[in-house]
C-alpha cells in the first residue's frame, strides 16, 4: 500500500514537473549547426530527469506560440537568426528589428504572450536584447536570457542552458499551476476560403492567437477595452510579392468587420491584413474565455 502511494506521488510529481523546450529555427544551409545544437541540448539537459525535454527544429510561429502558452512549459530556449539595425532612439522612422524563422519570416511579435508557468525564457539570436527592447519580456515573471551582441549559436545555447539550470535550481521546482487563467472579451471568428500560411492575430499590442495553415475557421477573443482593430500577420518579408492570405472574413456579434483596402477593394499591405469594425463593440457581448489555450 505504501509503495502504491509512493509510486502514485512519484508519477504525479513527474507529470507536473514541466517541460523544458528547446526550439531551433535555422534555414536549411545551417543544417550542420542545427545538428550540433540538438546534440548540445540533449547532452546538457537530459540530466534534468524530472522534466520532459522537448527539442524541435524548423519551428514556425504556430509551434512557438503553442509552447509559449502551454501551461506545462517551465523553460523555453529559442534559437534563430536575428536582424537588428541601430537607429536613433527618437527617430520616427526606423528599420524594425526582426527575429527570423527558418523561412526568414519575422516572429518577434509572437513573444508577446508568455504563460506565467514559464520560469526561464532564452531567446538566442544576435542582438536579441535590442530586438526585444520595446517588449517587456520580464513582465511575464520569467528569468530572461537575451544576448546583446552578435552571438555564435553554440555559445549562446550553452550560456542559455547554464542560466536555465541556475534558475530552476534556485526556484526549487514549484508545482505548475494548472488553473485556467480567465479574462473577458468579445469573440470574433476568422474564416478563410482557402488554406494558406499560418498567421498571427493582433489587436493593439496584444496577440490574440495564431491561425494554423491547416484551419479554415477559428475563434479568438478581443480583450475588453481594446480598440476594435484586428491585424493579421504572416511575418513574411515586405519585399515578398506572393500574397498568401486569400479571402479572409471576420465575424462577430457586434457587426461587420471591414478590411482596410484601396478604393478598388484590394487589401492594403503585403502578407498582412487590417480589419476594422464598422460599429462600436457591444458592451453586452462580453464572454469569459481562457487566456492561454493552445
Amino acid at each position, binding site marked *: 500500500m505504501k509503495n502504491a502511494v509512493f509510486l502514485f506521488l512519484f508519477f504525479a510529481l513527474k507529470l507536473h514537473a514541466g517541460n523544458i523546450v528547446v526550439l531551433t529555427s*535555422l*534555414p536549411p*544551409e*545551417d543544417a550542420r*549547426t542545427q545538428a550540433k545544437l540538438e546534440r548540445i541540448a540533449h547532452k546538457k539537459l537530459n540530466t534534468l530527469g524530472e522534466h520532459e525535454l522537448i527539442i524541435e527544429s524548423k519551428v514556425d510561429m504556430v509551434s512557438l506560440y503553442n509552447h509559449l502558452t502551454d501551461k506545462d512549459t517551465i523553460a523555453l530556449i529559442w*534559437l*534563430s*537568426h*536575428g*536582424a*537588428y*539595425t*541601430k*537607429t*536613433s532612439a*527618437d*527617430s*520616427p*522612422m*526606423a*528599420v*524594425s*528589428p*526582426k527575429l*527570423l524563422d527558418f523561412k*526568414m519570416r*519575422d516572429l518577434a511579435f509572437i513573444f508577446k504572450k508568455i504563460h506565467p508557468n514559464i520560469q526561464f525564457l532564452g531567446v*538566442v*539570436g*544576435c*542582438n536579441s536584447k535590442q530586438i526585444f527592447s520595446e517588449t517587456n519580456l520580464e513582465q511575464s515573471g520569467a528569468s530572461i536570457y537575451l544576448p546583446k551582441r*552578435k*552571438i*555564435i*549559436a*553554440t*555559445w*549562446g545555447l550553452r550560456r542559455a542552458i547554464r542560466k536555465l539550470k541556475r534558475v530552476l535550481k534556485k526556484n526549487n521546482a514549484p508545482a505548475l499551476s494548472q488553473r485556467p487563467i480567465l479574462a473577458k472579451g468579445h469573440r470574433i471568428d476568422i474564416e478563410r476560403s482557402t488554406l494558406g500560411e499560418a498567421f498571427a492575430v493582433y489587436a493593439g499590442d496584444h496577440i490574440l492567437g495564431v491561425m494554423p495553415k491547416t484551419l479554415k475557421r477559428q475563434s479568438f477573443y478581443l480583450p475588453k477595452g481594446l*480598440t476594435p*482593430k484586428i*491585424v493579421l500577420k504572416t511575418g513574411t*518579408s*515586405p*519585399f*515578398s*510579392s506572393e500574397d498568401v492570405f486569400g479571402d479572409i472574413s471576420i465575424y462577430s456579434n457586434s457587426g461587420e468587420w471591414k478590411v*482596410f483596402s*484601396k*478604393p478598388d477593394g484590394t487589401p*492594403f*499591405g*503585403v502578407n*498582412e491584413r*487590417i480589419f476594422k469594425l464598422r460599429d462600436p463593440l457591444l458592451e453586452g457581448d462580453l464572454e469569459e474565455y481562457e487566456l492561454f489555450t493552445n
Partner: protein
Amino acid sequence: MVNKFLTGFLSFFLFISVNLTTAPKAEAAIGLIVKNRTAKTVGGIGAASSAVVFGGGLLLAEAGVVTFNIASAVLFVTGTMFFGALGLITLDGETIADVEFMPIKKTTQSDGLTMDEVRMYNSELDELNAIRKSVQTELAEDDSSEDAKELWNAYKGQLHPYTVKVAELKALELAKKFKVKK
C-alpha cells in the same frame, strides 16, 4: 579612414499645403531595386541569409549590418526615396533598407504638432505602414519617384488628414538628415 562624401540633394516631392521646396536629383529607379530579387535587405530577409561563419561557429546575425547613425548622419547612401508613405534607402546600389514609420512617443513645441495629431498618427500606424508596403510592391521596374508619388496621392485619402500631415513631415525631417554618396 572614412571617406568624406558629398552632400547631395534628395529627390522627393511634397504634396501637402506646407510651403517646402525640393531640389531635384536623378536617382536610380526605385522600382528596379525593389524588384531585384538578389537585393540584400537590411533588417530583413536577404541580410540574414548571408549569415557569417565566425571562428567555426555560425553567427546568428546578418553580415554587414549597417548602423544608422542619424544624429551625426554618417550613413552612406546612394539614393533615397523618402516622402509620404515611402521609406526606402539604397546602400551600395544593391542593399536596401525597409524603413518603417514608428510610434512617436513624445512631442515638443518645436515639432509644430499637436497632441491630437500625434495621437491620430500613432493610432493609424498599422494602416500607414500597410500603405507604404503596398506602394513599394506596386512600383514597376522602371518607375520613378513621380510614379511613387502618384500612388501615395491615390491612397493617402484612406488615412486621417492628421496622419498624412505627420507622416509627410516626419519623412521629410528624416530624409534631410541623410547625406547622399555620389
